[in-house]
């Protein structure tokens, strides 16, 4: 019974999401169409639509506007059925009649589904079938899609979401090593750099290379790989560097890894700017014109899939061994766990995903320059991991979005001078944001040393269960 209700509610929500998504996307296409129609036909158009149209039309040069109008017939053909049905005003009719009603139906379905789901949350929390996770993931992506359509792809909100997703992946990859295996690495920026460069180098379109590598005769690499292949390659190259570093360093009992990785990050940054490698790395010049993404769905999909893999790993028998090593190396070894092999695995995998994260970051920034991958970038990630809680995946993800949102958005106002009633508010000036930020972090580290989540994970059941302390049970 419970199961049926859960399935039903999820189906409802998915149907709702599909409807809303469909409405929004068809509105998007129709948008184009409507905007190319004579304004008089839009007399009754809603203000949002009209504003959007004006904005686009204003932005277009005169020539383009007429050119687009010439293509009108072709566009109209695509919408034949509706137009035939509704005649000349078919477009408006679709937008007005079908659009809002579909949207309303979708929202209604979503509300019903969500209400049903909320009554079953308790059961859902226990119900850990892959289908549930897939449905939740689908919901998330649908949500991102809808938000992106409403807020606009280049809004601040979407910027934060994109960068947040990428940072979440990198933070989780660092947490795998620092939080779950107990190895302290400070090379994240270095592995990201390697990933970013690998990705960029292999996806610049062949005909753009002569521009990008203008000082190096178009560079050495003269082909472009498919995006996903290049992303995987970015991870593999980063992983390979980790493997090499790990060979000597991970055999040592004490914590030389932090020093070695920090050194690696600094050296690799210098090497990638070295002029002699220019035909490959473009020396100290920017890499640009490589394949990027324009919808937040891409980083969400890639980062989401990677984080899912890491979570699966952590809950596998290998992940359990990583945690054993973190808790007590001597005991772990006595349980037959090969310390070196398992540390190597964790380090290489962590670096792989840092490399993938670097590739995504390159796509997000649209340009890559080695000098940007400073140690401070590693510290940012480390902070996110600490704020989120060492050993908590959900903590790292949450902290990533919070961190990116505060540093890029919420605290921006601190950098702008503000004059109220002729009085300049003191302190507010460029750079003050970073000061406040540092103070917030210091307070955080001083008073919430275990981070937002400690080593716990966020889950639904914890919202309902009265918190029982794990250790409270037995006393001898």
């Amino acid at each position, binding site marked *: 019974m419970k199961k049926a209700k859960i399935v039903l509610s999820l189906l409802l929500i998915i149907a709702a999401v599909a409807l809303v998504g469909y409405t929004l996307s068809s509105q998007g296409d129709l948008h184009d169409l409507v905007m190319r129609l004579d304004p008089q036909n839009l007399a009754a158009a809603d203000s949002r639509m009209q504003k959007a149209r004006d904005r686009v039309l204003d932005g277009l040069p005169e020539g383009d506007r007429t050119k687009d109008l010439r293509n009108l017939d072709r566009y109209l053909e695509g919408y034949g059925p509706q137009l035939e049905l509704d005649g000349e005003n078919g477009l408006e009719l679709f937008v007005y009649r079908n659009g809002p009603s579909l949207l309303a139906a979708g929202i209604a379905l979503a509300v019903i589904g969500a209400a049903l789901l909320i009554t079953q949350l308790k059961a859902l929390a226990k119900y850990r079938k892959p289908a549930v996770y897939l449905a939740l993931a689908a919901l998330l992506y649908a949500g991102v899609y809808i938000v992106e359509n409403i807020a606009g792809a280049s809004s601040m909100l979407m910027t934060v979401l994109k960068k947040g997703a990428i940072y979440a992946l990198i933070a989780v990859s660092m947490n795998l090593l620092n939080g779950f295996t107990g190895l302290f690495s400070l090379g994240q920026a270095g592995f990201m750099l390697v990933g970013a460069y690998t990705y960029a180098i292999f996806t610049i379109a062949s005909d753009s290379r002569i521009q990008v590598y203008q000082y190096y005769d178009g560079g050495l690499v003269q082909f472009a790989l498919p995006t996903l292949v290049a992303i995987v390659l970015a991870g593999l190259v980063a992983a390979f560097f980790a493997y090499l570093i790990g060979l000597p360093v991970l055999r040592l009992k004490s914590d030389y890894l932090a020093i070695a990785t920090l050194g690696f990050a600094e050296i690799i940054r210098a090497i990638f700017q070295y002029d002699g490698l220019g035909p490959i790395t473009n020396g100290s010049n920017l890499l640009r014109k490589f394949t990027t993404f324009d919808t937040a769905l891409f980083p969400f999909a890639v980062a989401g899939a990677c984080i899912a893999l890491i979570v699966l790993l952590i809950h*596998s*028998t*290998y992940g359990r061994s990583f945690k054993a090593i973190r808790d*007590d190396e001597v005991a772990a070894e*006595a*349980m037959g766990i090969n310390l070196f092999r398992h540390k190597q695995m964790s380090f290489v995998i962590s670096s792989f995903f840092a490399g993938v994260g670097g590739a995504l970051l390159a796509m997000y920034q649209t340009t890559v320059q080695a000098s940007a991958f400073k140690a401070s970038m590693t510290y940012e990630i480390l902070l996110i991991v600490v704020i989120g809680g060492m050993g908590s995946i959900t903590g790292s993800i949450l902290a990533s979005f919070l961190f990116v949102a505060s540093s890029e958005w919420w605290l921006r106002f601190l950098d702008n001078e503000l004059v109220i009633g002729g009085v300049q508010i003191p302190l507010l000036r460029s750079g003050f944001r970073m000061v406040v930020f540092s103070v917030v972090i210091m307070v955080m580290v001083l008073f919430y040393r275990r981070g937002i989540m400690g080593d716990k994970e966020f889950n639904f059941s914890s919202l309902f269960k009265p918190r029982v302390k794990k250790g409270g049970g037995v*006393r001898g």
Partner: protein
Amino acid sequence: MQFGGVVAVDNLSLHVEQGEIVALIGPNGAGKTTAFNCITGVYKPTNGQVYYQDQLIVSNHPQGKMKALYAGQNKDAYKQVLEPTPDRITKLGLARTFQNIRLFKTQTAFENVLIATHLHRTSNLLTATLRLNHAEEKRMRQHALDMLEVVGLADLKDELATSLPYGMQRRLEIARALATKPRLLLLDEPAAGMNPQETDDLGRFIVDIKQRFDLTVFLIEHHMDLVMDISDRIYVIDFGRLIATGRPDEVQDNPDVITAYLGVDEE
């Protein structure tokens, strides 16, 4: 085994037959734990060898600074160097518990035991991550549960290991060692911190698991009643040197042992 100037285990030769329960006793600081650590690969002996089922598993001769200290002695007896890491020894079938309990602190009793099933995995990183090892995972969990059942902790499986009372933590360590499917079980003071009743139970328990899993048991213990009750043979060491060996009744009456334990020389 020598630490700087301290010779913790000196010219000691131990022999344990299959199916025996053998005890290693001696006053505090006698070198008992150090002997265990040499056998299980935690320390490499300065000069010495370990055989298991007629196979040489650990071997070392004086190196570096130690070379001078052992000049003219038996350093040529052990030419070969074999320094397996402890995990290799465990894989051979020697499992141990620790005197200063070493449970995985952030994990539950069940998780503690589950980790010990990792060494018999057939899955690799990929198949384990993608959950293609369903059957194996199920077997591992069942085995861990069974071992908790054996030590009587099945009801407490979801308790944080370190929140358990002392005696139970020791039993949990035994469950964890058993989960590695050993042939030889090395117990380092399994009754430490237990009251007489618990110690009694533990004695019966050790005999019980020995029979049930067809084990050989080698234990260090200070509780003499327990040692005398269950051991087939006893080795007594003091200052790293063997001072007596034999059946419990033989050892009990040995004047050297009494002297070592009382710590005074009557003469």
